[in-house]
């Protein structure tokens, strides 16, 4: 199947759209970024009001460390060497998850295998005997004030990832607030999956075909920045 939006462009579009979501808010934002597309969100943030928390014990994570300046003791939760920002701080893992569980992190950006129409998220395991790990996924989706799912609209086999009901083990129930793919910006508004923006490459009919979960289009639906 030919991709409507090529992978590199899709990933950058998703990350950029999420960054602009946060930059559009008129207040300080504390955000936590998962591995993959979520980590790329940092590349598009231009704001001194947005601070990145890493669950392995850092507030104020800076850009990835340059080649030759990496310190294996200064890493993000994806084990990548990072840098400090002015005003950063370090703490232990219980304090870090205290911030998350206590509702002090404004948003977590995570990848997902599936999100269903009730906002359930499956992103921690594909039961195939090869994975054995949950990390902070369950703490993050249940603790962060907002959960922003950053994912490709369809799997590599074309299968929709926005589904009626998750088939994989659930990470958190009814926790998704935003689902941002390369084809659309979806938001759960009072529990209803609502399309707020649509990619310029497609129309509503085509998007509906590519999406298993039923959704409504917002009255003021916009075209997503390409």
């Amino acid at each position: 199947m030919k991709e409507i939006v090529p992978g590199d462009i899709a990933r950058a579009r998703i990350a950029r759209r999420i960054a602009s979501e946060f930059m559009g808010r008129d207040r300080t934002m504390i955000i936590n970024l998962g591995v993959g597309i979520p980590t790329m969100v940092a590349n598009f943030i231009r704001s001194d009001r947005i601070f990145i928390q890493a669950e392995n014990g850092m507030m104020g994570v800076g850009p990835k460390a340059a080649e030759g300046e990496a310190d294996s003791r200064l890493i993000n939760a994806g084990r990548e060497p990072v840098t400090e920002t002015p005003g950063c701080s370090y703490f232990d893992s219980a304090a870090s998850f205290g911030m998350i569980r206590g509702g002090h992190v404004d948003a977590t950006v995570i990848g997902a295998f599936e999100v269903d129409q009730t906002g359930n998220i499956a992103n921690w395991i594909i039961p195939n005997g090869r994975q054995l790990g949950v990390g902070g996924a369950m703490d993050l989706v249940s603790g962060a004030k907002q959960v922003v799912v950053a994912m490709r609209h369809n799997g590599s086999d074309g299968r929709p990832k926005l589904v009626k009901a998750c088939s994989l083990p659930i990470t958190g129930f009814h926790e998704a607030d935003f689902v941002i793919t390369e084809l659309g910006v979806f938001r759960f508004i009072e529990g209803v999956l609502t399309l707020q923006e649509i990619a310029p490459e497609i129309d509503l009919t085509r998007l509906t075909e590519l999406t298993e979960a039923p959704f409504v289009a917002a009255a003021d639906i916009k075209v997503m920045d390409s």
Partner: protein
Amino acid sequence: MPDTSKIVSVKDAVAAIRSGDRIMVGSFGNAGYPENLVETMTASDLKDLTIISNDLGSPGIGLGKFLANGQIKALIGNYYNWNPDVARAYNAGEIDVCLVPQGSFAEAIRAAGVGIAAFFTPTAAGTVLGKDKETRDFNGRPHVLEHAIHADVALIKAYKADELGNLVYYKTARNFNPLMAMAATLTIAEVDDIVPVGSLDPECVVTPHLFVNMIIKKGEK
């Protein structure tokens, strides 16, 4: 300084507090007590307050002023023997008082801050202070279930804040302050000094800035 400064006047800070609010106040005796915030509140019309603090200072001094002024509806704390006015007001039916052992009190405030709903502790099991609490044995020892203690507002005393709101404390004036900073909807920190971002050692920040909503400088109006 970031474009969304948290630094406000003490007047603006206190204006965000409502009668009937649950207010946490850091301190142990008078160590680590946010003097300007308390002075301004005790000069205000705020009433029906629930004050959540270790103690209530001394009669008419420190937090004791809230009681002298009749601004208190209830107290949650652990040690009021330094202020005999509290027992007097309680016996007269003027205020409610809920005593929680000091360690359980500290842990329950932390629990609220870190999203733990309740926890089992051996402290007070079987005693008068544990008698209305769910009790369960762990490792053959009775434990009581203590629930998280939240507040609407936390009044914090710190030594220094940077302009983002990272806080460090001074010696035993730390006490409950870092815990309460996490446990309230609105956290207001009164500090001796405000320093530029980058001045505090990232390894030594005690309260990271995300917990702090407003900063006032001690002695400024």
